[in-house]
């Protein structure tokens, strides 16, 4: 098995990614000052998802790896979300 040439990410890219993550953290903290009542958790989850998307894509190199890895990640997360959804068929409708 030959060692395939890897992608080398520039330091600056990680710098920008870190900045983006910190800005998103600021946003997620700031919105807690606004009363969104029922939407609070939803907003928090959306921002967290965006942050994890960035972490997965850049820090965890999904952008540069074989597509297979991305397919697996999407599959695993979909299965997990479906499991939660099915569980709530019980808890929401009991």
């Amino acid at each position: 098995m030959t060692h395939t040439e890897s992608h080398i990410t520039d330091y600056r890219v990680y710098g920008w990614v870190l900045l983006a993550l910190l800005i998103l953290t600021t946003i997620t903290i700031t919105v807690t000052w606004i009363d969104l009542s029922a939407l609070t958790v939803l907003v928090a989850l959306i921002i967290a998802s965006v942050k994890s998307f960035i972490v997965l894509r850049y820090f965890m190199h999904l952008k540069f790896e074989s597509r297979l890895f991305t397919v697996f990640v999407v599959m695993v997360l979909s299965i997990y979300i479906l499991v939660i959804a099915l569980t709530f068929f019980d808890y929401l409708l009991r």
Partner: protein
Amino acid sequence: MEMHRDDIGAKLGMWLFIFTEILLFGGLFLVYAVMRHRYADEFHQAAHQLNAFIGTVNTVVLLLSSATVAMSITAVQKGEKRKGVLFILVTLICAGIFLFNKYFEWGHKFSIGLYPGSDMMIGLKHGYILFFSLYFFMTGLHVLHLIVGSIILTVIMIRIQTGSINKERYVLLENGGLYWHLVDLIWIFLFPLLYLIT
């Protein structure tokens, strides 16, 4: 016989392991979702008891540590050994700060008698009990992963120094980095769900 070397295979293995970790925490997030659904108001109030400032500091620290791990891969790929070691060192320092904060955060709660199984905790409202149980269980398991990750990164740092991780073979560093990012990923969800739902 010459050891068969397959970096992509090694990374695939690491990703599969990360999936199991995600689902391990997934079980806890499921419990969280159900309990929050049942006790939305009490979760809301209980979250006020957590120190959002420490939580925020720890978030920043973890994000920074994730960035430096990623940067150390770049350094090793470029053959800049010294930088590679330094970046990991920064990560480890960040991990230390995180642990330090967590120690005081937990210590404070223990000192006022708030810990699983304590008389004070059993006497609280149901939603409070479950919130704090989840808080201790989830952050506890997370800290355990952080400690394991730190040990792994320490080994990796030494190996960069001795040159057994180098420009040509650095898959161990990549996998250690993946594990560290997992610790970060979990925290990205724990932080808003525990500290910010006030």
